[in-house]
């Protein structure tokens, strides 16, 4: 159920905030064994602020990499498995002040690194549409708990596609606004220049409502933006006739894949073309645009290079010295080494080693700085296209959520571009939203719309009108 429907029920007195909490809490426990959305489920109803906002009294969930004073925050990593923060992330503070009711902290890929939802220290998160499939990550639990109907909205973080990809696999809306629109203070950093805070909702309107509450300048985050003074939920009903969208020919044109036997991919792309036809019906002009295959192929390596480099440094505070499990050893070096050896999974260590290698003096120019240049080139090219077009419309993924253990060819065209283009929005800080657009093999697929920097309202507006046209996705039990 969406926020406005719950609002109505609350305002009419049909239900109380506590009723909603009890219902959410019950569902959270009920689905926990099967789907594993949560690291921590909050069992005590607590509602301090009676401020009058659209979300007052409404339950929500937070990804477990947001600092919550007095509430365990693990980032789904063993090294933080007992870490109880002493301060609140700005987004948590804002949601509390707005009267939102936190019902739990959700599972992520360890330290938000990874896109499968399978690497958290408390186990894998399963896809509500098919338990044999993964939900995607890293904001796995936050996506699952909205897809399961436990909460109407949840908060996630998005460094490469960590909100928008799982949203696609889980059949929900996932939005990350412009870089700096929402404060990152209190979000455990993965790759600071790419990290965004965003939300999962059941409809575009709710994404606007939640963003309205979260946005604004935070003196504790120097990269945060002055508030644009807009109320997004009031901007999304405008006529979008004449707005221009484009998609990448190299990734979406069926001719590119004419030798492919990937049925799922072909069906997804056909569905994408159908969605585009629907878009045209509401007056959106959609064009096929050739980008630059080389640059598109470089998205994934550039993303990995930059994010691993920043992640290595950002997580260097996890030594077991100030907090976390203290390692053993005869010297400080040994103690830190032991804590980190025991605290991180192999996958994380691999990323740290990569990041460290990338930043080494002798490699930095060739690896790190070149990746930064590729990033710049891609963003420049996007901005050039944004002079003519209002947004990029793309399939959010090359297909449906994969099954656990399913192997993908990481160097295929499908993988390199269709599975990774969402990182473009992180490179440039562009506002970007994923909305469900139908089903393939009974599983959800989605489109993604990415717009000009600062134009969060335009992106939400276009997405809302498309959603109105093609309808919301209902999960069949």
């Amino acid at each position, binding site marked *: 159920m969406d926020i406005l429907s719950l609002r109505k029920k609350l305002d009419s007195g049909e239900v109380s905030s506590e009723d909603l909490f009890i219902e959410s809490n019950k569902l959270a426990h009920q689905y926990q064994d099967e789907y594993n959305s949560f690291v921590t489920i909050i069992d005590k109803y607590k509602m301090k602020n009676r401020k009058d906002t659209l979300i007052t009294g409404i339950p929500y969930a937070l990804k477990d990499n947001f600092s919550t004073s007095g509430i365990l925050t693990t980032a789904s990593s063993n090294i933080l498995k007992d870490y109880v923060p002493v301060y609140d992330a700005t987004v948590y503070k804002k949601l509390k002040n707005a009267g939102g009711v936190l019902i739990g902290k959700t599972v992520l890929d360890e330290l938000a690194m990874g896109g499968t939802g399978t690497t958290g220290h408390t186990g894998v998160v399963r896809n509500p549409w098919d338990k044999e499939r993964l939900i995607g990550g890293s904001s796995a639990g936050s996506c699952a708990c909205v897809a399961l109907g436990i909460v109407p909205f949840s908060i996630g973080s998005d460094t490469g596609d960590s909100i928008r990809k799982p949203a696609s696999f889980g059949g929900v809306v996932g939005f990350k606004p412009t870089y700096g629109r929402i404060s990152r203070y209190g979000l455990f950093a993965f790759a600071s220049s790419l990290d965004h805070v965003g939300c999962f909702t059941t409809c575009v309107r709710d994404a606007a409502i939640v963003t309205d509450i979260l946005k604004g300048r935070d003196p504790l*985050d120097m990269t945060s933006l002055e508030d644009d003074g807009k109320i997004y939920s009031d901007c999304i009903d405008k006529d979008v006739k004449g707005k221009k969208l484009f998609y990448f020919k190299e990734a979406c044109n069926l001719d590119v894949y004419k030798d492919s036997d990937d049925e799922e991919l072909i069906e997804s792309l056909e569905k994408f073309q159908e969605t585009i036809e629907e878009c045209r019906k509401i007056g959106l002009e959609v064009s096929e645009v050739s980008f630059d295959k080389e640059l598109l192929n470089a998205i994934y390596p550039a993303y990995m290079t930059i994010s691993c480099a920043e992640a290595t440094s950002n997580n260097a*505070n996890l030594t077991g010295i100030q907090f976390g499990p203290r390692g053993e050893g005869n010297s400080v070096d040994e103690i830190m080494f032991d804590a980190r050896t025991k605290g991180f999974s192999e996958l994380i260590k691999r990323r740290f080693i990569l990041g460290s290698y990338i930043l080494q003096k002798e490699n930095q120019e060739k690896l790190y700085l070149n990746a930064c240049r590729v990033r710049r080139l891609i963003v420049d090219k996007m901005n050039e296209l944004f002079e003519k077009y209002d947004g990029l419309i793309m399939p959010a993924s090359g297909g449906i959520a994969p099954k656990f253990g399913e192997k993908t060819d990481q160097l295929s065209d499908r993988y390199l571009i269709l599975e990774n283009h969402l990182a473009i929005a992180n490179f440039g800080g562009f506002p970007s939203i994923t909305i469900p657009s139908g089903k393939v093999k009974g599983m959800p697929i989605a489109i993604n719309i990415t717009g000009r920097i600062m134009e969060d309202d335009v992106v939400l507006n276009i997405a809302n009108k498309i959603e109105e046209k093609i309808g919301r996705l209902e999960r069949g039990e």
Partner: protein
Amino acid sequence: MYKVVIGLEVHCEVKTVSKNFSSSPNNYSTIPNINVSTVDLGLPGILPVVNEEACRKALKTAMALNCQNPDEIIFDRKNYFYPDLPKGYQITQVTKPMGRNGYLDIFVDDYVKRVDIHQLHLEEDTASLDHYEKYSLIDYNRSGIPLMEIVTEPCISSSDEAISFLEALRSVFIYCGVSDARSDMGQMRCDVNISLMEEDSKVLGTKVEMKNINSFNNVKLAIEYEIERQSKLLDKGEKVVQETRRIAEDGKTYPMRKKVDAVDYKYFIEPNLPPVKLSDEYLEEIRKKIPRLQYERVIDYTENMGISKEEALILVKSREIADYFESASKVCKNYKEVARWVITLVLASLNKLEIELDEFFLTPKMLGEVINVVLDDKLSEDNAKKIIYKAIEQKIDPIEIIKKENISRIDDDESVRKFVIEAIVENPEQVRQYLEEEKDYVKNYFVGKVMQKSNRQANPTKALEIIIEELEKRR
């Protein structure tokens, strides 16, 4: 004899209200871990917020050291693991330091030396560690305090030059108001790099590094010890090992660690602090606030005001005294006298009263005016000093005292003659003794009388002249 090549890296804490990247107070405290916030502890999710005041002060210091400023402020991360570094990286400046390619002219004994400055950058201090036998304790009070690092070129060639440079640099910090630069509180620390080379060689010798020396005296001892140690090694044809050494309490240096490879700090630009462009206006605003510095003042005092270098160096030791001297010099144009009075009277009084100049009652204007009265021969220096002490004690303008008590030297012939004639008329016996018994000393008796009558204000020399003249008239 070998040629000594020394380079210095000086760390100086910047005086600000809060820390460099957090809002915790930037205060010295002996109570551990009280000036600490989530940011200083490097807790997950924290973000740095840059302290503009620290940036402004670092830019100001860079300007005072004749450096070029960058076009924008950006910071870099220096990555390494150590328990005193809670984030696992230090926010510092590599790409665009606050200043580059500067210099500082200093006085060394009887010559002037230009010390080239490689760069000045702003960074954050680490926590401090206390080591015990079986454990160590971490105090995060220092974690995040803004720190300037000034790196010289390897252009210093003796311990005297090094000490003169450090003293001159400290005076720049203090004159600019950017730091109290107190070594005893660890606010100013110094790394010394030193190597020796053959007099005619063009190849630098092997460098030895001495880290974190916290007093100027130890810098001197360490340099002198190293020169001796390295000379002996070279004399014997042995090699100097490239290493880091520390100075011990006995004034000798001991090896700390061998330098195998330089540590790779994996620098990259701090992504959480967006670049801030520096406009010419902004820099000009800062530049305007730089006072005239020691070197410039010494040159001015000696070349334009006729003051000796020794006195000039005393006057510029503190900016307040130098300013005081300059203000007084606006009132009294005999600069040499003003200098003498400031050094003998003002500095001595401050010492005696154990107060700072800002608590001193006597303003430079008052001093200048009193000196003027003395120089006009209207008041003896002794009396002037007495009046000044009285003025300080009673907090009254000394000129007011002079006026009120009608104290000023009686100097004109007519007034003095009036007292002389009165005395002669009143003491016929003494006149007779002078004239008839040739008792010459009687004239001093009359000087005494005149002083008595004039309330000690008659000019005694003049009085004597007139006494002799009047007595002789009566012969």
